[in-house]
């Protein structure tokens, strides 16, 4: 586009000069394009604030964990959300939000004062409203012309997008939509009773999902409805993510897996644990070399949030520096971490401002569901990730993922698995990945940004750049010398004296050993002559 006017402006120049000028200008143009900072500006529009209320955590029921699942979904959608119990609602609170989600897990709600206040405000403010579980308030039910019934105590199965017949939680009696108007989302079936109903319905900002439970299928189904409820036009892709990767991981297997995935045409993400100490050790350098190699084999690197434990305590003050240090180290090794992987609980609890301190470098995240419920009663999501993925265990959804090439995903989905302990495990998984219907996308194709004070790390259209400069993907693993001074050499006193002494003693001892050797020969001869005749 820019060359045309330039070409038109040079007919008076000699052809050779023209070619030279074109060459120079082309070079300058190319250079300016290349060097121009590729920084992705944050969405100018501030994230929408949503209030998430619940009446019960449904502990011990099929719905247990669905509050956390909903909070995680809201985080995946990049929303700022506040979680609180409905009993703690204060009058007028709804005015502070642009959306309301209510998790009605209690089939028999009480009539507390806070709940009455909430009910009155709900009618007054008229916010976009999402209701999950029992008893949609009558005003909304009427607008949806909703009729519900209770299922038998049987495990429900959801079909939506590429999923077909994926189980929803435990067998329990649940309300379902027997009739309504509005857009239905997916279908829920109870096979033995033959009942079938929409998973959710949405009509003019009012959404109702009676059977929302924790679990990959339910969360993905909910994501379809949330996308429209939020008016989000974006669609998503599936990404293959391997986690539990450390410097102590079998590096040869890490490299072989990258090669195997590359050969199979499967882009992948390695989510790697951060390292804060001894990063100059040869073992760490070798680890970095393999990560860089994986990146060159169509891989993307995610940095995981550091593990914090109750025993160790959360070290709030240095975590930002430590995490920045690790990201800088990756950048200096030409590795571009495009997102953060973290256990959702760590992020949602946000103890010691962990999200702000340890995760604010990223715009993209993968929040892994926690294996153990942590019964969160209140939370405030302030640090958001506009480019996040919904994380589901690959083997949880894979059996129900059917060939539906036309089905788009409502969000980016990270289908994750732990990294393999041996080559056999890797080969077995690879066979399944090759044969199933899930199409994995290259995360680098999207626009992602990670930023420390020193580095701006980004991707766009499959190109990785550090501080605006595209990086060359060098696929050779450089050998790292094991010759390393693990401890800094101390300044030694009397070094010269000891060096000289050392030399003298070695000489004397060597000389003595020669003499002793001669004595030994004589001694053996004498011994034989004297005692062995």
């Amino acid at each position, binding site marked *: 586009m820019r060359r045309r006017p330039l070409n038109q402006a040079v007919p008076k120049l000699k052809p050779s000069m023209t070619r030279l000028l074109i060459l120079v200008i082309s070079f300058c143009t190319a250079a300016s394009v290349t060097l121009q900072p590729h920084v992705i500006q944050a969405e100018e529009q501030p994230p929408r604030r949503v209030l998430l209320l619940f009446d019960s955590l449904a502990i011990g029921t099929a719905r247990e964990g669905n509050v956390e699942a909903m909070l995680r979904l809201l985080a995946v959608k990049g929303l700022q959300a506040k979680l609180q119990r409905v009993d703690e609602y204060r009058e007028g609170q709804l005015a502070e939000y642009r959306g309301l989600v209510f998790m009605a897990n209690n089939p028999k709600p009480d009539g507390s004062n806070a709940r009455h206040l909430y009910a009155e405000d709900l009618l007054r403010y008229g916010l976009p409203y999402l209701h999950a579980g029992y008893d949609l308030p009558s005003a909304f039910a009427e607008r949806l012309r909703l009729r519900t019934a209770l299922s038998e105590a049987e495990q429900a199965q959801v079909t939506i997008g590429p999923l077909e017949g994926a189980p929803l939680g435990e067998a329990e009696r649940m309300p379902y939509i027997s009739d309504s108007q509005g857009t239905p989302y997916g279908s829920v079936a109870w096979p033995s009773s033959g009942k079938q109903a929409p998973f959710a319905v949405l009509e003019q900002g009012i959404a109702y999902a009676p059977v929302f439970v924790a679990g990959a299928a339910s969360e993905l189904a909910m994501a379809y409805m949330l996308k429209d409820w939020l008016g989000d036009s974006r669609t998503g892709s599936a990404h293959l993510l391997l986690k539990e990767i450390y410097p102590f991981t079998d590096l040869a297997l890490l490299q072989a897996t990258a090669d195997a995935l590359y050969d199979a045409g499967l882009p992948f993400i390695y989510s790697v644990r951060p390292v804060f100490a001894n990063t100059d050790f040869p073992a760490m350098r070798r680890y970095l070399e393999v990560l860089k190699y994986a990146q060159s084999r169509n891989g993307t690197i995610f940095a995981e949030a550091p593990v914090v434990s109750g025993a160790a305590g959360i070290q709030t003050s240095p975590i930002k520096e430590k995490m920045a240090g690790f990201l800088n180290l990756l950048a200096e090794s030409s590795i571009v971490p495009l997102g953060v992987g973290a256990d959702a609980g760590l992020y949602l609890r946000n103890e010691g401002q962990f999200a702000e301190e340890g995760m604010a470098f990223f715009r993209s995240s993968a929040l892994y569901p926690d294996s153990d419920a942590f019964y969160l009663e209140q939370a405030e999501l302030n640090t958001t990730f506009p480019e996040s993925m919904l994380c589901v265990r690959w083997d949880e959804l894979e059996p129900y993922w059917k060939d539906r090439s036309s089905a788009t995903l409502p969000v980016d989905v990270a289908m994750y698995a732990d990294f393999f302990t041996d080559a056999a495990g890797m080969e077995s998984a690879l066979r399944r990945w090759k044969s199933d219907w899930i199409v994995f996308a290259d995360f680098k194709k999207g626009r992602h940004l990670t930023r420390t004070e020193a580095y701006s790390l980004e991707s766009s259209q499959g190109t990785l750049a550090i501080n605006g400069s595209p990086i060359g993907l060098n696929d050779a693993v450089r050998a790292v010398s094991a010759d390393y001074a693990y401890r800094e050499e101390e300044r030694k006193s009397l070094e010269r004296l*000891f*060096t000289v002494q*050392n030399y003298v003693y070695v000489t004397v*001892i060597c000389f003595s050993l020669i003499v*002793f050797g001669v004595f030994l020969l004589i001694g053996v001869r004498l*011994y034989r002559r004297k005692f062995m005749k």
Partner: protein
Amino acid sequence: MTIADVLMVIAVFCIWTLLLVNIVLIIAGYLYYMDCEATPEPVLSGEAPFVSIMVPAHNEGMVIIPTVESLLALDYPRDRYEIIVINDNSSDQSAALLASLQSRHSERNLIVINTDAVTGGKGKSNALNIGFERSRGELIAIYDADNTPERKALRYLVAELMRDEGLGVVIGKFRTRNRDASLLTRFINIETLSFQWMAQAGRWKLFKLCTIPGTNFVMRRSIVTKLGGWDVKALAEDTEISFRIYQMGYRIKFQPKSVTWEQEPQTVKVWFKQRTRWAKGNIYVIVKNIPMIFRRRTKVVRFDIIYLLSIYFLLLTSLIMSDILLVLHAMGLVHTTIAGFSSLLWTLAVVLFIVGTFITLTTEKGELSLSNLWQIALMYVTYCQLWMAVAAYGMFAYFKDLLYKREAKWYKTERY
């Protein structure tokens, strides 16, 4: 440089200097061995001098009879030597056994002196003094109660002494009779041989010095008379009297052809007691004779005093100090910055120890074996390290006795 650094430098200097001294001693000792091999056995000329053989014995019933019988069988004119057994305050059957033996050999010059807690029981020096009073030989020979001297042992000692007026004492060699009893006795066997061929033979070759070993030696009566007998306070009476003989201007010669076989401790406990007594006794001798270092008249024995001083004070304190510093350094309590020696040097030093010790074994029948080589290597990491504990405990006991003004207690080595 910190204080720890200075201490470490001194310690390292002492340790390595002693190592070099020992190299010289091994070489000198081996040259002496070759001299001896080239020289015929000493021969007695003229009338054999009368020799009083003294055997101090305290509760030695288990071993005394074979010892006296072997002394009776010595290849020396029967009428030219007497055997004086000082049965010193024994509570076992020694007296009866000796009386029976005496009656069986009534024609021989066998004297048994039985003492009780009043007249004796004050240790080896006192027993020797008692025996000396009864002796009439112009030469005095001493054997421990567990010894089995070879038949010609006394003859070689006397012949050597009589042919050189400058010799005050001639000492023989002692071997381990119970070498194969345990690993400990194997170590002791290696230790005694290497000590004799390094320290005794080496010092004789270089300085014409030896230390009386406590058994299998012969000395002139005139010397004992002049010295006024043995020092009853000394636990290492042999080392103590050696120094006094040096001061008189006499030399002490090592004659390895005279051999006696003795029984060595078979358990670590007994060994530890015996060696602690030696260490304590040697420390007494060092302290008593330190002024000799500064006397011109006694310059010939300076090496011996400095050598003993180095081993018991400098080497011991150096080893303990370097070990303490090492531990404290590992615990982060002290910080040393001095440079160290290379691993090659340390390895060479250990190889040198093994080869040097093995060379001294090639002098003896039945000792040139691969198993001995392994035992020397094993000895380095076990037996030699125990020496440090022995010497340290000996020093502690010596200064404790000095502080509380306690008399040194003589304890007898247990027999088997």
